[in-house]
């Protein structure tokens, strides 16, 4: 596999097991800088685990992951430094419930990057403004709707000015009417050229936004290609089967 351009991601032969459960069985993915890659596949196919491995929340068993030219799965890598450059947003938002929206967003810039309070709050305020959340800055997370919470979680990750964003089923826990506002935020990021890896069940969204779609099945990339090919003319029987089930469920 050729090296990705600039600040891209290269995943090579990654294996990961949890006990007897062999979740990733030799994953290869290449993400160029400014590219949006969508991971699709059934639950349990390894999408979330792959994202968690790229963020070093899970150590890989074998294989390697290179980000921006640096092998982050090498030994003696400072995981905190790597994570500062890679934002991740989770399905369940994972906001800090004991902190206001503003504090949620400024915590890591202040404590991990050492930015002073005033600068961190200015940065947070401009991000909140951009995503229409200015009036929520002093609220606690449990006072917000799911869509608002997820947008705050995205802002929290962006406040670290990451070069890469990983989105793990970010609309998966939302009521249908709240999905659109979150997807809109992600579209904006894509237009700005943010490098993103997105695990999603929203096939229509993946078709719109992705430059590359990877279909994961039982821990391997069964098929990868541009969205128009994957969604209209899949080559692999497994991909066809998966998409037929999605269409039958009315999700495409």
């Amino acid at each position: 596999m050729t090296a990705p351009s600039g600040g891209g991601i290269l995943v090579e032969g990654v294996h990961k097991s949890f006990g007897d459960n062999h979740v990733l069985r030799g994953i290869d993915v290449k993400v160029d800088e400014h590219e949006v890659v969508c991971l699709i596949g059934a639950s349990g196919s390894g999408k979330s685990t792959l994202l968690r491995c790229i963020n070093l929340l899970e150590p890989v068993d074998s294989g390697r992951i290179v980000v921006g030219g640096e092998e982050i799965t090498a030994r003696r890598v400072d995981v905190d430094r790597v994570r500062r450059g890679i934002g991740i947003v989770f399905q369940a938002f994972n906001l800090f419930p004991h902190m206001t929206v503003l504090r949620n967003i400024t915590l890591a810039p202040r404590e991990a990057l050492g930015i002073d309070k005033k600068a961190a709050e200015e940065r947070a305020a401009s991000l909140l403004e951009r995503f229409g959340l200015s009036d929520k800055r002093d609220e606690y997370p449990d006072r917000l709707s799911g869509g608002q919470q997820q947008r705050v979680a995205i802002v929290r990750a962006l406040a670290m000015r990451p070069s890469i964003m990983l989105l793990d089923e970010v609309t998966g826990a939302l009521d249908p009417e709240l999905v659109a506002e979150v997807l809109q935020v992600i579209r904006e990021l894509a237009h700005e050229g943010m490098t993103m890896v997105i695990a999603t069940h929203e096939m229509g969204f993946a078709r719109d936004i992705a430059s590359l779609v990877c279909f994961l099945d039982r821990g391997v990339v069964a098929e990868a290609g541009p969205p128009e090919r994957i969604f209209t003319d899949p080559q692999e029987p497994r991909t066809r089967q998966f998409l037929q089930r999605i269409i039958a469920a009315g999700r495409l």
Partner: protein
Amino acid sequence: MLGNRGVLVSTASTIVVLGLIALAIAMSPGADIVRERFFSWEHLKQSFLGTETSPSVVSAFLLNIRIFMTAEVIILVLALVIAVVRSIPGPVFFPLRAMAVAYTDLFRGIPLILVLYMIGFGVPGLGLKYFSSVADVTYGIVALVLVYSAYVAEVYRAGIDSVHESQVAAARSLGLSRWKSMRFVVLPQAIRRVIPPLLNDFIGLQKDTALVSVLGSIEAARAAQIYGAENFNYASYVVAAALFVLMTIPLARFTDHLIARDRRRREAGFAR
């Protein structure tokens, strides 16, 4: 909430029940002697204020308060350190973790009174120069701190364990170190959750300050005992008991209040 009628009924039934109990006590064969030995107004007053030969139970009680206040502050800090040490992952820190486990096992297992004897009589008995000038009550405080820190550390640990792993994942994913994730994300949530059980342990601590008297400190229970022995009357114990109850009630009500507030918050959370 009780309505007007509810208040009326509950008041009436309380009066009836208390009246029956009072009647039963007054009619029992030893009633007069019990009243004289435990509730004699003269003895209650004298032990409360103190006499020439026996110390005032109230002023002795100030020592209980001092012991409690001092021990409480140290316990809050020491127990937190033990709990945090116990939750540090990684093979390198195994010796530290093992020490924290051994500490809690040991001091939760030994009866407080034995720890008091060992510290209060054993340490001065070593004949070390530095310890010769230390007051008895200091040894008492040290013993209370050792025992109660073991309990309170476990309470903290339960709180730390109750914070969901996804909170740590979120903090670490933002590039916060293990320690900063603990300090800013885990501990604030953990401590909030364990305040009620923590206060419960402190009610126990308030009462156990009486045990420090075995080292010779004249606190309320010992002062009451001195009065009782000299006057062959137990009203002094009633005075001491009342003082302890008076001290623990505010803390108990405060605990109730926090638990109720917590429940309201949780229910509000579910409703959304």
